[in-house]
């Protein structure tokens, strides 16, 4: 019981700390109203960390059981056996081997939204294996190996630089970093979602033979896109320093837009992968949509060249928020405003929850369709 109380206390305390830090301005204790300050961010991060730690403390220790199916329904089993003990203290068990074995009941009531999350967690080792497989396969046979993950975006940037600086003559400070930062975050989204879209279809061969939760493959696609981005951060930061944007404290904020974009990609990825199972032309449609999206978002050009209508539309474009929130601390050393961070985060969370809900509702039908 004490473990529970401690856990709950930590979760609530941590959340409170995070909330106070984030809303310091509104509570009247913030130093610079309207700007997210350092102490605020540190406080928020620490608060979330504490509440996460509380969550882990709160979790019931699981009995360690071998085998894939065992861990699966083990908690449920614990519940029933615990209840049985209370109501039926003496229960004859002639076949003692049966006790404690997990039970799968196809008619059991379950919430797909939650169930698939626990399944994803249970198959986390597969997730790591899929991500590392993608990386190994991608770079194994090339001479430069993993260096390609860093060289590739640099080369793309060089091409764009030549084209846009020479032909269009945009006036942007630190234009190389501007382009590269935008491209990297965009690639995370574009590559992640395109691969995720095919995840369920491509792995139908495996899923025809063994049970593997479909969401693992989607998460794997996004995960490898994220790892690729992490590699490419090295040349980006070097380029930033070389281009006259020295390392600053504000760089500590960079993981936030990266994570937001990852979540965004995952949310779009689950929707696409579910739709692709039912509609074969999704793959072609999305290619066109993605292309249009790329050119409508200020990635390689500045916002200032857009007509007013498109500028207004950017208000509803998560990619624009995240790329902007990625460039500002990197190039100008400024953090995005609290409102923009909150709004974009909430919007993406809602999108991901909706996508996850759609995906988990349909996932039972995947095996019938692929």
């Amino acid at each position, binding site marked *: 019981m004490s473990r529970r109380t401690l856990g709950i206390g930590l979760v609530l305390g941590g959340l409170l700390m995070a909330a106070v830090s984030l809303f310091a301005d509104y509570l009247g204790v913030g130093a610079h109203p309207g700007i997210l300050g350092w102490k605020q961010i540190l406080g928020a991060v620490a608060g979330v960390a504490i509440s996460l730690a509380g969550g882990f403390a709160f979790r019931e220790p699981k009995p360690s059981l*071998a*085998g*894939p*199916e*065992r*861990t699966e329904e083990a908690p449920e089993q614990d519940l*029933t056996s615990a209840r*049985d003990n209370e109501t039926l203290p003496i*229960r004859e*068990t*002639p*076949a003692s*081997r*049966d006790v404690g*074995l*997990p*039970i*799968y*009941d*196809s*008619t*059991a*009531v379950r919430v797909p939204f939650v169930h698939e999350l626990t399944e994803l967690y*249970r*198959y986390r*080792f*597969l997730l*790591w*294996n*899929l991500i590392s*497989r993608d990386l*190994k*396969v991608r770079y*194994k*046979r090339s001479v430069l190996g993993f260096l390609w993950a860093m060289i590739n975006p640099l080369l793309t940037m060089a091409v764009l630089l030549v084209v846009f600086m020479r032909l269009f003559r945009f006036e942007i400070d630190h234009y190389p970093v501007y382009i590269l930062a935008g491209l990297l975050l965009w690639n995370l989204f574009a590559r992640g979602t395109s691969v995720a879209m095919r995840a369920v279809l491509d*792995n139908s*061969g*495996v*899923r*025809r*033979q*063994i*049970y*593997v939760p479909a969401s693992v493959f989607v998460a794997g696609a996004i995960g490898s896109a994220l790892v690729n981005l992490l590699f490419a951060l090295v040349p980006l930061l070097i380029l930033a320093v070389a281009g006259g944007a020295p390392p600053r404290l504000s760089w500590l904020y960079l993981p936030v837009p990266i994570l937001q974009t990852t979540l965004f990609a995952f949310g779009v990825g689950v929707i696409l992968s579910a*739709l692709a199972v*039912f*509609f*074969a*032309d*999704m793959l072609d*449609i999305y290619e066109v949509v993605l292309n249009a999206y790329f050119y409508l978002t200020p990635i390689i050009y500045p916002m200032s060249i857009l007509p007013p209508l498109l500028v207004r539309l950017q208000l509803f474009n998560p990619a624009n928020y995240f790329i902007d929130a990625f460039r500002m601390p990197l190039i100008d050393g400024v953090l995005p405003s609290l409102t923009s961070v909150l709004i974009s985060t909430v919007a993406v969370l809602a999108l991901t929850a909706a996508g996850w809900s759609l995906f988990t509702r349909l996932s*039972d039908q995947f*095996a*019938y369709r692929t």
Partner: protein
Amino acid sequence: MTTDATNRVHMTGDDGLAIRLRQVSVRYRVPTEPVSTLKEHAIRLLQGRRTEYREFWALDGVDLEVRRGEALGIIGRNGAGKSTLLKVVSRILRPTAGQVWVRGSVAPLIELGAGFHPELTGRENVYLNGAMLGFSQAEMQARFEGIVEFAELWDFIDAPLRTYSSGMMTRLGFAVASDVDPDILIIDEVLSVGDEAFQQKCLARMRSFRAKETTILFVSHGLDAVERLCDRAIWIDQGGVRHSGGVRETAEAYLETV
């Protein structure tokens, strides 16, 4: 909540039962015209036409009970529903109607090497394949030596899989898939792998599963193999259980119609 209660009632009455199917049906809907694109759906919607489907019942009201430690052979023609039956037991398919109830972990001895990647080494593939079967990194580390030993591939384990012969690949696949220690083992036509010596090893491993009281579901066209491994057999025809009983009598009933 209600299912939870009924569950418990069954549990007390079903000691020793490993698998129970009640009126299990699986329906595939096959569209009579090919409409699988969004474009075609949109056009249809605009025209106000509805897509017509032909229904196909791969399983139709199947009742089946398998006791723990039993080896059940499943025979029947192609397309009779044998593989679909295995799929509902191993949770790949959720049945359209009816209840599938399974106690214990289920592992399929799958078509060997599903999910293998040619560019990865044998070692990396073993870990990847194990993870697909639901094992953690630590569990696979503990099993790794035994797997390679069984597959007799120590010399090649760090070479990419594309350099393997097909025999080596199936050996590795069988070694991984059969190294699991499930309560219920599902085998779909795989016993004919490798050379004579390796086949002997496979058979020995099958027998060790039997000795450990592992429940086995075995689908095969080879009636001899079914007879050697199983205590009981069912004959599936057009999605239903046509005959159930001893292996020999079921096989004879089946052979009469062929």
